[in-house]
């Protein structure tokens, strides 16, 4: 696959585009009171029995700070996870809580100014990684509520412009980073020609609908190529569809429920249209909860299985269907938060690595307690490198501690963050993708089977 730019080369090209994002954000002018009202309405709408119970239960012990990478690398109390929920708690107490009549006498409603201040706490310094949820003695799911804070800041038109730009693109174009259907076709043509592999597009019926991502299409076609190679090798009956190929769901990242549902619904409709029994998600962590655990779109369970690529590969290995060449390196695996801690997929990617004869050296904090890459939840789009770079440094130290030669992950966004970290810290250790490694380790002696 050497004819394509490496991930790091592609990332450097993308950097220029990311820097222009703020200029592309649509203006969101409105009076301050309207911003506050919209945010309050979103909060109240979201405050259900679960969140209410959480907000009634915090004992201000501060333990959650010790789990959060942003606190860990700065020591600044303002990054304490539960503090990121202050506006939500105030709104809950004033609007939804059992003593709201009392709290209204002694507290002020949230303001647009406060929402603007909280942007940094909910977006720049929270990747919704869920690590703090592990440590809280009350079991409070802080990340789930940061989601609500983000949604309310977005509703107030105060989300970071970088994020709003991509969100607007997805809302109107159904894709991101300019990865149009034409571009997809162009990339597929290029891959088929250069790699001599068939990538089925727009088949009317298929057992499996595969979603790729704007990141892979525009930046890392190797990811798509690798997925195609493995699926063809396994003889999967699969297709990509130009009317539903984007797995990235910015609605889920920015926490705009309507866009989230709209994008998810479209993907679901495409899968149903072609009679798919499986919907396979490419390496982009947030796509898994965005679709697999998207509630309230259909009133019944989906008529197909939603499976993440690392889960799929691992299960193929475990079932003995996928055999890989063994070359026995020492690797460490970074679990993307959204598929690991929030998704429960831990053993499958490791099974793939072991099938390649790799020795998996775990980081000091791994699997459930693994630290976020530093730029999840759309964080890598933000111009807040000074803060993120401290997390990058910590992550790199954790990788160093393993003594492994290579870092492997199964998320394009995590990889993007590590590639940035690698450049900044002049690290030599390669950062690889699980599916690309698997494709590179397919047995030589077997030709690519044709799909279907």
């Amino acid at each position, binding site marked *: 696959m050497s004819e394509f730019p490496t991930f790091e080369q592609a990332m450097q090209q993308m950097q220029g585009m990311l820097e222009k994002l703020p200029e592309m954000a649509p203006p969101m002018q409105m009076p301050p009171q309207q911003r506050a009202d919209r945010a309050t309405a979103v909060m109240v709408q979201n*405050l*259900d*029995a*679960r969140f*209410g*119970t*959480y907000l*009634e*239960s*915090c*004992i*201000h*012990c*501060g*333990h959650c*700070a*010790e*789990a959060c990478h942003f*606190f860990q690398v700065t*020591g600044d*109390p*303002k990054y*304490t996870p*539960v*503090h990121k929920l202050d506006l939500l708690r105030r709104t809950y107490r004033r609007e*939804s*809580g*059992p*003593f709201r009549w009392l709290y209204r006498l002694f507290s002020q409603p949230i303001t647009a100014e406060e929402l603007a201040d909280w942007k940094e706490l909910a977006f720049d310094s929270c990747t919704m990684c869920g690590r703090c*949820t*592990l*440590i*809280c*003695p*009350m*079991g*409070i*799911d802080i990340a*789930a509520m940061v989601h609500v804070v983000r949604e309310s800041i977005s509703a107030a038109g105060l989300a970071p412009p970088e994020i709003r730009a991509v969100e607007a693109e997805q809302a109107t174009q159904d894709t991101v980073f300019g990865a149009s259907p034409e571009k997809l076709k162009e990339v597929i043509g290029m891959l088929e020609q250069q790699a001599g592999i068939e990538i089925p597009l727009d088949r009317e019926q298929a057992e499996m609908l595969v979603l790729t991502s704007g990141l892979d299409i525009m930046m890392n076609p190797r990811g798509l190529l690798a997925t195609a190679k493995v699926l063809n090798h396994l003889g999967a009956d699969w297709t990509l569809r130009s009317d539903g190929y984007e797995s990235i769901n910015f609605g889920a990242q920015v926490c705009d429920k309507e866009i989230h549902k709209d994008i998810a619904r479209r993907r679901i409709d495409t899968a149903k249209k072609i009679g798919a029994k499986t919907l396979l998600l490419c390496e982009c962590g947030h796509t898994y909860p965005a679709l*697999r*655990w*998207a*509630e*309230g*779109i*259909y*009133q*019944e*369970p*989906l008529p197909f299985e939603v499976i993440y690529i690392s889960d799929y590969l691992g299960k193929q290995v475990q079932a003995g269907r996928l055999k890989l060449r063994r070359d026995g390196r020492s690797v460490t695996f970074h679990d993307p938060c959204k598929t690991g*801690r*929030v*998704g*429960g997929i831990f053993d499958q990617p490791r099974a793939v690595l072991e099938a390649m004869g790799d020795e998996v050296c775990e980081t*000091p*904090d791994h699997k*459930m*307690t693994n630290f976020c890459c530093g730029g999840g939840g759309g964080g890598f789009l933000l111009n807040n490198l000074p803060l993120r770079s401290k997390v990058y440094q910590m992550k790199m130290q954790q990788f160093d501690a393993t003594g492994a030669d290579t870092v492997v992950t199964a998320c394009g966004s995590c990889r993007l963050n590590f590639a940035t970290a690698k450049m900044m810290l002049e690290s030599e250790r390669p950062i690889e993708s699980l599916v690309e490694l698997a494709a590179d380790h397919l047995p030589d002696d077997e030709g690519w089977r044709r799909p279907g």
Partner: protein
Amino acid sequence: MSLLEFARGPAFQAAVAILVFGVFWRLLGVLTLRWGQRQTEPRASAAAGGVRTVFSRFWPRRGLSRNVRTGRFLGYLSHIGLALVVFGGVYHIETIHGVLGVAWPALPGSLISVAAVIALGAFLGLLGRRLMHPTVRFLSTWEDYFSWAVAVLPLVTGLLAGAGLGLDYATLLAIHILSAELLLIWLPFGKLFHGISFVPSRAFTGANYGRRGVKI
């Protein structure tokens, strides 16, 4: 009516009534809010996850206990000490018997005194942590300090009454009972409510992650 009679009679009845009403009001107020819809196919049992997390959170997760050891340790000491005093003291058991009709053997008085002293020491340690630990101080509001005082007062007055220090026994006892009643009255309103809400709070998270196949 003497102060002691007041404390044992109308004040006690009022405190219990406020406690029961307040706890129900707060619990119902929260639990009757909307319940989130769940249509996605679970990967594992939500109920099992919920039950598991209610218990698993009594102990910090391995790998995450590094910087919270002091807080956790003081938390255990204060809570266990307080529980021994409240549920092991002979007079306390008699009081509970009077209200609920159930009783159990009491612990020796000397053990109760030791438990009370340990609990008090742990509470002082927790206060010190709240005042000195930058993060905890940053998070703290007047309510954290008030609730601390309300929880500690019965311990202090109980120890004083037990030792017969300061005032005459009847007055000391009345003050002790009144301070315990203040705790009962405040429990449903402030953060002491975590003694009840920790169950649904942990269960919600356990169930939500449990259905995703994650043991949290």
